[in-house]
């Protein structure tokens, strides 16, 4: 996934590309993060898309598949891919048109990898040797000591 996100970031000349779960959890990111707080950014992006989709329903649209915020220097493009959000932060080195075209192309690849990851994750959690089944009360208590 990191390789796909990395390639996509270069192809659309983005500053940062993030893949975020619709509940606001960061799955992967690539680019010039600097001191950007990716956790907060992901959470706000998810809230933003959730609010936008609720607004869509109020006007009779099923969903807004993408959301754009254009700033003076930096802009944000968010594309909804199933349960995930592909977020592109870009500046004057790129254009919205280029980002949109590249995002459309990348979304199929990202969706396929995510589907695979979901199946693998489900298989892992069903495994009797799942690491989480071994968590003891002491492990949990130790987090709060």
């Amino acid at each position, binding site marked *: 996934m990191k390789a796909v996100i990395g390639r996509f970031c270069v192809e659309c000349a983005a500053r940062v590309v993030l893949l975020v*779960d619709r509940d606001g*959890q960061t799955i*992967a990111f690539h680019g010039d993060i600097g001191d950007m*707080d990716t956790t907060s950014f992901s*959470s706000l992006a998810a809230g933003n898309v959730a609010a936008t989709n609720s607004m869509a329903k109020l006007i009779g649209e099923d969903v807004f598949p993408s959301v754009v915020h254009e700033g003076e220097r930096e802009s944000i493009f968010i594309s909804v891919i199933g349960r995930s959000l592909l977020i592109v932060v870009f500046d004057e080195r790129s254009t919205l048109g280029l980002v949109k075209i590249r995002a459309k192309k990348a979304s199929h690849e990202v969706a396929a990898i995510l589907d695979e990851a979901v199946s693998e994750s489900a298989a892992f959690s069903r495994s009797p040797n799942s690491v989480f089944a071994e*968590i003891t009360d002491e*492990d949990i208590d130790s987090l*709060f000591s």
Partner: protein
Amino acid sequence: MTFINYASREINCKIVYYGPGLCGKTTNLQHIYDSTAQEAKGKLISLATETDRTLFFDFMPLELGTVRGFKTRFHLYTVPGQVYYDASRKLILKGVDGVVFVADSQEERMDANIESLYNLEENLQTQGYDLMKLPYVLQLNKRDLPNVIPMEDLALELQKKGEPVYEAVAMNGTGVFDTLKAVAKQVLTELRKS
């Protein structure tokens, strides 16, 4: 749903503080933020009105440490308490792993507590959750005020399923971490079971 990133070996859980307007949800988060070491927390984001009432949500990520090689991070959210922000409350409950209901102990806020608790059950249902099966803690806040209802009476009215009940004064931090610890423990225990 707890989000597990196997690649970065992280467990991310979402805890939502729910309750009527001005019950102290944001104050709970503010206290946790102020009392936590810099390296264990991210930014506290508050989407608030000009008068500091929560408009959409407050959010802070909190890292508790490592369990079986997995970094555990709790994402703490509050909802806007005012009745007319119901659409926002529904959205924030998406993907929730545990809920803290912050009740206002003052006599005159009893109806607001009941209404908000009913609203929580209803909104959870809309998102496909059942309060009876979800990690859940009841916090009775503002215990330092003169006009509070006795703890037993409040618990009798608001307790839903034998969940842990904590008395709190979020303004000075009393009961805030006990509440968080109780809900976090339930979430991790649930993860073990699943």
